[in-house]
């Protein structure tokens, strides 16, 4: 059976057919306004180029930035009711207190406080009040809201009251879509709650979008299940994606890095995605991007998602070279997507990093004769600057002096020298389709983030218990049990608390069980 990976970007839709670890075909088509049209065109073309029939496809994985863009552009978001289970605690700051005004306006001011939060050890802060939740449900129905977010204090430790509140609200507001914060994120009430609210607000859009993606896949004659790739580079099924659109927020850069790793054959590497204006740099460890530990802003909202730790520098193929005597500069200003119109090799009169690469004989693009008369000193100096900036970026990502491969992908990777800081540089083939390939090779994950008391458990027992629970989650999500391995394991003792409380986080990944679907 073949796998198809698709990257539905803002501009282009890329698709790739893979046979095990072999790439059979790669295509790129413009993204259509309705998403489905572009997807179907890409699927048809890639099936044709790979010379396979739809019946031979065993798995379709789609990566999309559609939901991230909806938040950034404040489009297609539903008004949402927020029920915080916290009383009497949690009243000092209302939900969305640190959101941008315009986004808060779109989601609306429908905030309710109730009891049902728990302490760090899982004991209730105050008794759960079912009648109060019922009353809130009546009010939500009266306001005509169909999206509900429920956030409970310490619900990642114990989610019972979020569940009970959801059951009651579902009765009171029959057609509501409800998101529980315990199903979204980690400790940190405001950040987890914000992600939960965004998820609820995106729910209707996700229903529609995922259904039309599925429709597009089906209309191409493909009958196998369709999955979406999520933030950490693993898979979720279409039904999960409809319920948890926020889990696709960072799938773009993740897929690009994982695809690059696949193309080069490395599992541990520094990846540079060199575009027209910027270069994104990240570190791969065991085939997955290293995660950022700080909070992540999405459309101006602080969330505590685990996102790839990627930084950008203002250097790309379209970077403008300004010649100021001995100190020539490259970037951060760029001609961007107008490269093929403004760069010298394309008949324009702006000197870009691409012109330098052509003049130095590193690439054959456009008309090389148009840069033949460039002052050699300028070319040499600009190359030096480019190399220095790339070297700084690579060095910043290194964890140790041990050698690690450097992988360059993206249209601007012609700027890359053969070696950087003494590290070998690889420019794998098909680098432009790294995103789609990253989607095609996605695995299944399970994650646990919980506080354990080490009074009665040993540290090892707590870690083992967390790992067991993470494995169960991965299997429930479709992984074959024997393929599961631990990718992240972390325990952080909680300062100031006697009783040796410790926060344990374990993540496992495994291969998708294709037979089960």
């Amino acid at each position, binding site marked *: 059976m073949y796998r198809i990976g698709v990257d539905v970007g803002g501009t282009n839709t890329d698709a790739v057919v893979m046979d095990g670890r072999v790439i059979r075909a790669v295509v790129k088509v413009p993204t259509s306004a309705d998403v489905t049209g572009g997807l179907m065109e890409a699927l048809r073309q890639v099936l044709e180029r790979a010379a396979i029939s739809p019946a031979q496809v065993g798995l379709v994985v789609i990566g999309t930035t559609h939901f991230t863009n909806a938040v950034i552009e404040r489009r297609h978001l539903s008004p949402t009711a927020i029920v915080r289970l*916290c009383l*009497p*605690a*949690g*009243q*000092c*700051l209302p939900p969305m*207190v*640190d959101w941008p005004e315009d986004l808060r306006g779109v989601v609306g001011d429908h905030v309710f406080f109730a009891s049902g*939060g728990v*302490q*760090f050890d899982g004991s209730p*802060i*105050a008794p759960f009040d079912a009648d109060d939740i019922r009353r809130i449900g009546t009010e939500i129905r009266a306001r005509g809201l169909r999206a509900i977010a429920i956030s409970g*204090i*310490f619900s990642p430790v114990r989610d019972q009251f979020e569940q009970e509140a959801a059951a009651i609200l579902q009765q009171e507001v029959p057609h509501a879509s409800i998101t529980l914060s315990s199903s979204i994120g980690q*400790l*940190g*009430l*405001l950040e987890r709650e914000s992600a939960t609210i965004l998820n609820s607000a995106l729910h209707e859009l996700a229903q529609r979008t995922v259904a039309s993606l599925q429709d597009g896949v089906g209309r191409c004659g493909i009958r196998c299940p369709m999955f979406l790739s999520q933030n950490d580079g693993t898979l979720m099924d279409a039904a999960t994606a409809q319920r948890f659109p926020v889990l696709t927020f960072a799938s773009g850069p993740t897929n690009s890095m994982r695809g690059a790793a696949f193309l080069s054959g490395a599992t541990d590497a520094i990846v540079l995605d060199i575009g027209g204006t910027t270069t994104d740099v990240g*570190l791969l460890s065991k085939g997955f991007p*290293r995660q950022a*530990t*700080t909070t992540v802003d999405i459309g101006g909202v602080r969330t505590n998602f685990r996102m790839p730790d990627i930084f950008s520098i203002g250097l790309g193929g379209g970077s403008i070279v300004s010649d100021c005597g001995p100190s020539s500069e490259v970037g951060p200003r760029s001609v961007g997507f107008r490269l093929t119109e403004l760069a010298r090799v394309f008949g324009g009169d702006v000197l870009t990093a691409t012109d330098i690469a052509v003049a130095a004989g590193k690439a054959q693009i456009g008309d090389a004769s148009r840069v033949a008369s460039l002052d050699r000193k300028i070319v040499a100096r600009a190359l030096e600057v480019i190399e220095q900036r790339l070297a700084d970026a690579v*060095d*910043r990502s*290194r*964890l*140790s002096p041990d050698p690690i491969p450097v992988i360059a992908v993206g249209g601007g990777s012609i700027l890359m020298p053969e070696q950087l800081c003494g590290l070998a540089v690889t420019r794998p083939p098909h680098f432009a389709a790294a995103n789609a390939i990253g989607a095609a090779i996605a695995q299944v994950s399970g994650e646990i983030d919980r*506080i354990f008391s*080490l009074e009665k458990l040993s540290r090892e027992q707590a870690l083992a218990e967390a790992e067991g629970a993470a494995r169960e989650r991965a299997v429930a999500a479709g992984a074959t049990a024997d393929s599961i391995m631990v990718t992240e394991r972390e325990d*952080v*003792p*909680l*300062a*100031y*608390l*006697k*009783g*040796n*409380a*410790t*926060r344990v986080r374990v993540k496992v990944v495994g291969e998708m069980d294709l037979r089960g679907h």
Partner: protein
Amino acid sequence: MRDLTVADIEALAIGAAILGTGGGGSPYIAKLRCQQALRRGERIRLISLEELDDDALVMTLGGIGAPTVSIEKLAEGREGLRAMRAQEEFAGRRISALMSSEIGGGNALEPMITAAAADVPVVDADGCGRAFPEMQMTTTSIYGHRSTPAALTDEHGNVVLFQHAVSEVWYERLARSCVVTMGGSATGAEAPMSGAHAKRAAVPATVTQAINIGRLVLQANREHRSAIPQICAQEGGKHLMNAKIVDLKRHLLGGFAVGEIQLEGIDEHAGSRASVRFQNEFLTFERGGSVELCVPDLIVILDVDSGQAISTDLLRYGQRVAIVALPCHELLRSPEALAVVGPGAFGIEGVEYRPMPARPTPVISLSLQQGETP
């Protein structure tokens, strides 16, 4: 006296995190609460120690407990006010002003929330000039003030009054177990002190100091340059090195996060190695086989690019950091202070505290800053 603005609070949160030397908890929640109070029309009035009457009643107040709990279990909102009222009832007098017991971390801002609600001023001073892990480690207590009678409150309305503890260490011990019962975080108000004692024993002008540090960071970020040279110039600090974290050990000891990081120099410090020990806060900086700096001087770890403080719980293998040392206040350098907050008090054997050169006399003009938009 001057009124703090929303922008002042923004800068204060950054500066307070830096003076937290790795501990003190994130000021984020307290910052939002202060800014919310200001937007509601409440006032946060800052007064200098000199403006205090000798017989004024000054009280320190703040959050006690695990930072991890306080980012999850947000407060009810009036915990601080209840603690303040309990102290007033016990003393039979009104509190004249509130003060932070430690300027490092979230507790720089906690008293301001209650001060705004009760409409009393906040004193431009604190009990550490930085952050320390235990309650007896304050200048006000070192120079003779007792924390008890102290009040602890929670979100339910429970108010526990510790009428008397035979020592500060005993109060710390009793309060901790009460905090655990209250769910791992609580609000505490220590016994009020006289204005005269605050003038003698509190570290002066630290709120202004933190705001000024925060402004330097914000300014540098806007101009895409490092804030470190200016922070060092303003605070008499020393930029020890830029480094990458190449090893990180962390474990629990009596409820504290204790550990050590190994550093490898980068940029102009490439090739040199160093290490930093911590117990909630950074304790020592060791290079070339000897301890170059230690508590009570401030060892600060900043993100190389943003200039923002990195707390011990966010330290991570591979991080690129700048290590900066800032001199502590003279009040922490006396023999009686060093017995409580010197290296020996943290179980660090055989290290003698060698003070770094004192902070230059701060050129601080409160009136100058008024109306400025940082």
